[in-house]
Each structure stands twice: as C-alpha cells, then as structure tokens.
C-alpha cells in the first residue's frame, strides 16, 4: 500500500491514518469496542466479566511490587513477607490487595460462571467461550494453589503437602510423579522456588493468553443477554441489531459503576477486615512453615473447599453407596431404557469395570477421581443442557429446583470443607456430593421436561 504524506492540519487524523496503514488500530477499536454490539438489557450479573479482567490486572500489578521485596527461599520467605507488612512503605497495602485480591478474583469468577449458567451463555454458539473459560478457571486454581505456598506459613506448607500427595494415588507413576513435582522427597526449598517461578511467570502468561482467547471467541459469536435470545434476529435498516448498543461507550460507562461498587466491597475488606475472620488469611499461616508440627485442621482456602469436601467425602461407605447406585443404573437400563442391546451390553461392561474399581480401589483414590470429575463436569455443561430456552427467566420449574439444590449443595460443601470432619458432617458432605454429581448427570433429563415459558422476540428492557 502506498504511504502518503499529509499536511500538519488535522494532525490527529493524519496520525491515526499513518498508524492505520501500518497497524489495524481503528479497525480493532471499531470491531471490538465502538461497533461491537451488546444487548441493552445487561444487568448486575454482567459486571463480573469486566471485573475479572480488573482483578487479573490488580493481581499482576500488586504481584510485581511484591516480588520486589519477597524472597523465594525457605529460610527467608516468611520473614520477607513480614518485612513487606512492616518495613516496606505501604507494603501491607500491596500485600492485602494481593491476598484479598486472590479471594475476590474467585468471588468474581464464580459469579461470572453462575451468570453463564442462569442465562444459558454456555449454549450454542458459545460453547468454546465456555470451554476456554473453564480452562481459565483451572489455570486460576493452579495459580492460586502455587501462590498460597509462597508466604511459607505453616498452612501453606501443609496444604501443599496434602494436595501434592494426592498425585500419589495415580497408578504406577504416582509417587515418582509427586517427587518430580516437588523436586524433593518433601515440600522444601526446591518446591518453593519452582512454585514461585510458575506463580509469577508461567501461569500469569497462560492466564493472559487464555483471557485473550476467551474474548476473541466471545467477539466471534457475540455476547448473550439476560433473555438468552439472539439480538441479531431483529435488525434495523443498517443491518444492526435493534436491541444492540455499542460496547463503547455504553457498556464501558455502565461497567464503571460496577467497578466502583466492587471496589467499595474489595477495598472495604482490605482496609477493615483483611483476614475476613480467618477465611481470606488463615490464622495458622501466621506461623512459619514447620515440617514437624502439623496444624490441627489442614484446610485449603475457601475457594477450594467445595472440591476438597468432595475429596474428603470419599470414604468406604460412599464407595459402597456408589456400588449400589452403579448396580441400580444398570438394572434400570435393562428394564426401562429403550437404547439398543449393543449399547446396553457396552454400558454394562463399562459399569462392571467401574464396579471392580469401586470394590478394589481406595477411598483416597476415588476421592481424587471424584474431585477431578467435579471440575470436569463444568466442561460438559454445554452438551448436558438440553433445554429449548436459554435464560432462567423462561426455564421450566424442574431446572430451577435442580439449580437451587445444586447451589445449596455447593455452599454446604464449601462450608464443610473449611471445618474438621465429624461423622455427621461427612455424611452431609456425601449427600451433597451425590446432589452435586446428580445435577450434572441428570441435567439432560430435567432440562428436557417441564413447561418452559415462551421467549420474547425482543429483549426485556425499560428505559429509565
């Protein structure tokens, strides 16, 4: 392309022309902001996507300042965090922004995922947006887990010890794999150093790349809306959706309200209740790592506890119950299901394999399998959900009941995971584990029954 010289008048335009001939700045700006159309009826739940980006930026920015004073060394790490808290000017603020920020990042991400489920944002054509989001969630868990070791407190140490030892249950290679990850026979300086490298370099890079892909995929198919309908079905004479408004400035300005409101909560916690009564900063983590002294209850931070509860719920009695459920499903299939004989035989062989595994496998091994499965379930959601409508506003009653049960089970599991187990609590965790998996396993069924409400042809919106 020929490059033209311009006079100095209209220098801003000339400058942008100069840039645009060499880099698609205006094109990208228009496609992804000024002319990217979003539904005008975005509500409260739509704040959490931009807030998740905000938290990623906050964590990276505060993390950079923390690394300036933090020492990734088993002898110095704990003292260096206290040095940041006491001797570095406003180091306490940066540290609290980062530690509270980690928890708030998960709050935002969980609410963002929940928004997806209630408005059907995981459904066609947004399956890849959802899948990339699920990978972000897993990467974020890895990032948080490794970051939690770095203060080298006693709970950091023992939490990492417990979680890494889970890899031991992998057949044949487990113990060797665990040793390879730790770089030692126990959690040690070698583990701390590699976790530091992963936490500050590898995983942030992966997260940023995944968030970029998440947005690319989203902008390919367009944003969903609280009515779960396609705004491109109603176009004006210019071919623009009637219910759409440009992302910039409308949604950006609206998101600023969300940012301010969120910062009030986030900074409110940072300034007035940074440990949130032991939920965001555990009291046992104010004692340095001590390989000879196990804390009375080893519990992960709150955002892992639903999954940790599922892990702990896997006792011999749960395996027995699963054997019965397994047998029951096979019996039901032979008597009631209308699938072909071939499929029935194949399914029975699979079920027999699971039964052998349940009979001979340990509670711990199945706990790890269940915990992993609990996360994998999220990936399958776009294909498990068969409802003819997307949004909870028009969904059938069975879906709403199932969702409320799942939500209750998820919260109860989360609560139980923060506490030491008792026989009664373990039973409750087992019941909630069954509800958790039943939500996913039965989803194709309960999303296809019941009376849905008719979807509107235009989004529901009242101008204020």
């Amino acid at each position, binding site marked *: 392309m020929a490059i033209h010289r311009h006079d100095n008048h209209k220098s801003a335009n000339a400058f942008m022309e100069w840039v645009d001939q060499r880099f698609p700045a205006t094109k990208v700006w228009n496609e992804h902001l000024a002319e990217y159309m979003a539904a005008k009826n975005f509500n409260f739940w739509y704040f959490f996507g931009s807030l998740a980006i905000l938290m990623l930026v906050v964590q990276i920015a505060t993390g950079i300042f923390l690394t300036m004073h933090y020492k990734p060394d088993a002898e110095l790490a704990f003292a260096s965090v206290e040095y940041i808290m006491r001797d570095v000017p406003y180091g306490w603020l940066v540290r609290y922004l980062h530690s509270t920020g980690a928890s708030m990042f998960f709050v935002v991400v969980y609410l963002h995922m929940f928004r997806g489920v209630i408005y059907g944002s995981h459904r066609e054509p947004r399956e890849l947006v959802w899948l990339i989001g699920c990978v972000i969630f897993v990467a974020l868990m890895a990032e948080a887990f490794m970051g939690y070791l770095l203060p080298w407190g006693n709970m950091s140490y023992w939490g990492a010890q417990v979680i890494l030892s889970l890899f031991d249950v992998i057949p044949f290679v487990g113990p060797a794999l665990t040793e390879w990850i730790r770089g030692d026979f126990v959690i040690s300086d070698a583990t701390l150093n590699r976790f530091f490298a992963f936490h500050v370099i590898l995983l942030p890079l992966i997260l940023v790349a995944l968030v970029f892909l998440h947005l690319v995929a989203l902008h390919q198919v367009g944003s969903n809306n609280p009515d779960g309908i396609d705004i491109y079905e109603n176009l004006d004479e210019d071919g623009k959706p009637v219910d759409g408004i440009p992302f910039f400035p409308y949604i950006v300005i609206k998101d600023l309200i969300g940012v301010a409101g969120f910062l009030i909560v986030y900074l409110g916690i940072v300034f007035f209740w*940074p440990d949130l009564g032991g939920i965001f900063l555990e009291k046992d983590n104010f004692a340095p790592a001590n390989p000879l002294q196990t804390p009375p209850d080893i519990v992960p931070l709150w955002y892992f506890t639903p999954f940790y509860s599922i892990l702990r719920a896997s006792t011999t009695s749960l395996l027995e119950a699963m054997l019965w459920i397994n047998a029951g499903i096979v019996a039901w299939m032979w008597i009631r299901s209308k699938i072909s004989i071939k499929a029935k035989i194949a399914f029975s062989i699979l079920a027999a394999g699971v039964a052998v595994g349940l009979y001979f496998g340990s509670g711990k091994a199945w706990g790890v399998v269940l915990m992993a499965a609990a996360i994998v379930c999220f990936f399958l959601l776009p294909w498990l959900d068969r409802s003819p409508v997307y949004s909870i506003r028009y969904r059938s009653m069975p879906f709403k009941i199932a969702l409320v049960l799942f*939500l209750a089970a998820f919260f109860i599991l989360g609560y139980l995971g923060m506490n030491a187990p008792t026989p009664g609590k373990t039973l409750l965790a087992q019941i909630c584990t069954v509800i958790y998996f039943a939500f996913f396993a039965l989803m194709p069924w309960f999303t296809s029954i019941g009376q849905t409400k008719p979807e509107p042809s235009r989004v529901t919106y009242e101008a204020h």
Partner: protein
Amino acid sequence: MKKLSLLLVTLLSASVLASSALAAGGHGAAVDEVHMNMSDKASLQNGAKIFVNYCLSCHSAEYSRYNRVAEDLEIPLWQLKENLMFTTEKEGDLMKTTMPADDAKAWFGVTPPDLSLVARVRKPDWIYTYLRAFYLDESSPSGWNNSLFENVAMPHAMYELQGVQRVVGKIDSATQEVDSHGKPIAKEGQIIVGDTIFELQHPGKMSSVEFDKAMSDLTAFLSYMGEPAQLKRHTIGVFTIGFLILLMLLCMVLKAEYWRDVH
C-alpha cells in the same frame, strides 16, 4: 431471578458469618473477652513497657523494630532508649532477646516462641486469658502450670505483679452464678479466669483489677505488634471508601447521561 439473587446473597452471608465465627472461636476453650482500645496510646505504651520488661528477656519479636514501635506508639526516642531498649543500642534494630536459643531450650525444654505474630495465630482473648491463668503446681518442672494451656513449659513471668494463685476448681456451669452478660461472678476472695476458679495464696504488687488492666494493655500491644498497619488502615479506609462512594455516584450520573438515548 430476584429470588435467586436473594438466595445467593443469603447463602453467601450465612456461610461467611458461620465460617468466620468458627475460625475466630478456635477449638472452644473457655476464654475471657478482652477489652482493648487500639487508639488508646497510653494503653499501648503501657503494654510495650510490660513487654520489654517481662517478655523480651526470653521471647523475641524478631519482625518488629524498636523505632517503628516508638513511632507508632508516639514514644519519644530518648524515652525509648532510656526505658525500653535493654537488648541493643541501635534504635533501628529488631526486638530480639539476648537469651541464646540453645540455652533456652536446655532450660525450658522448648525455645520460647517468637511473639511478633502471636496475636494473629492465637486470638487476643486467648492471650488475655492465658496471661492470667498461671497457678502454683509443685508437680510441674517449673513449679507453675496454666489452666488454659495445661503443662505449658513457660513459668509465670509476672507473679510479682499478679501474686501467686492456687486452683480452687473448675466452674460448675449448673450451680455457678452469672451476671446479666452471662459472665460468672466470683465469690469473695476468689478469681475466675476462663473456666477455672483461683484464690490468691500471696498477693502481688497489683490488685486483681489492676493486673487485668495491665494484661489487657499487654494484649493490646501484642495485637498491635501482630499487625502494625491496623493503627492506620482504618483511617485510610474511611477516606478511600468515601471517595469510592462519590465516584460511584458520579459514574451513575454519567451513565444516565450517556444512556439517555437508549430506548
């Protein structure tokens, strides 16, 4: 949808409250509630005085610096040097004990733990109760025992202030008289700490009320030392939140203006 949001908020707040109550309460040992005022500089200064005189001989506070304590607690440097610095000459030094760790271990069986963060690991109520719960016990190696932390290796460092206590017995919750706040009322000549009833065998330099006040000052100081930033983060927080509320209102006005043409 409103119902679902409401359910979510209810579940969220219920689990936060339940878990934080549980995390704060620990394992349910009977402890007395301490009344601290972190903005009362005189109380914190008195706590610092007791700390350097009675605690620092064996325990360190190895993340805390003398001059930082002086600055935060508004103690003039000359006073700090004359009255509070017994272990070093340099005001920028960390508050380390002069007792060698190996000797301490030989004498007490364990190295006395560092106290910089003790108030964040144990809670202030626990510390306040522990400090007042030492009693004479001839069967223990040091001659002392503690009703909150049975068979603790630490001897009673402040018996000259508190006096020497003997155990009368544990509180019987069925017959114990309580006041309107549910706090047990001690009988004449008796002292109740946690769930244990004591009586004074030898009086100390302080009365029971004075000693309780001194220990709440010391607890306040330990709590300050666990997190020096707590003295100023509330003030910064009030201004920050005030600014954010203003910002949010402005954003709402701005949004309303921009969205005027959306129908």
